[in-house]
């Protein structure tokens, strides 16, 4: 798993590649902990290159969202595959997260 961060139009885009699971979650958390420590106000998490998410991965994303909300930060998810989106729907996390259809929609919607 790799996370590439990119600052664009006043917000941070985190492009994730690979799998978000019990093995990769600690490293992902470290990347976001830095952004959260800086109180980054707006983050888009691009999941277009993510092929697999397990319950640890879902938990990691929930943790990031919780930490961002603690200082008023906002986070949006974009680019998830239909399979990964179905996991969000089954667990009702699609109601908790702000999921945008495209990066453009996420940027303009902030």
């Amino acid at each position, binding site marked *: 798993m790799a996370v590439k961060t990119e600052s664009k139009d006043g917000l941070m885009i985190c492009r994730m590649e690979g799998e978000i*699971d*019990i*093995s990769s979650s600690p490293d992902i958390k470290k990347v976001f902990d830095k952004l959260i420590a800086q109180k980054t106000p707006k983050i888009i998490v691009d999941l277009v290159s993510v092929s*697999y998410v*397990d*319950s*640890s991965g*879902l*938990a*990691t994303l*929930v*943790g990031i969202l*919780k930490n961002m909300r603690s200082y008023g930060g906002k986070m949006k998810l974009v680019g998830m595959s239909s*399979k990964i989106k179905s*996991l969000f729907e*089954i*667990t*009702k*996390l699609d*109601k*908790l997260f702000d999921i945008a259809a495209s990066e453009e929609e996420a940027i303009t919607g902030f």
Partner: protein
Amino acid sequence: MFIDIPSDIIHIRKVSSDILSSLSSRGVAEDKLFDIRLCAEEAVRNAIVHGNQGNKRLRVKVACWVDGDKVFIEIEDEGEGYDPKSVPDPRGDNGIMKESGRGMFLIRKLMDKVDFNEKGNKIRMEKKLWP
């Protein structure tokens, strides 16, 4: 197929890889393979972390076989067992923001049938492979 691993999460991927490899020539759809992998990994993780409490001297035993149009996966730990009905629904107001508790819920949703032995230390899952 039988797999016997120590209670260390580094072995989770080996279990799912072996299971998927055993199904690779059967023409199973990618979506179903995703579900089977996810459920096998979640169940093995539960066995390691909750069942065996991460005690590396304790083992997790996995059996996987195909019978007719279904795959069966059994995962047994050496722990005390638990009541699977005691796992709360993670979708409720109290669970939705929690950073754990979705693994068993996903297993129940993605597999066709899930059973436990009386002690609660062995799970048996089954899923139709086709269509």
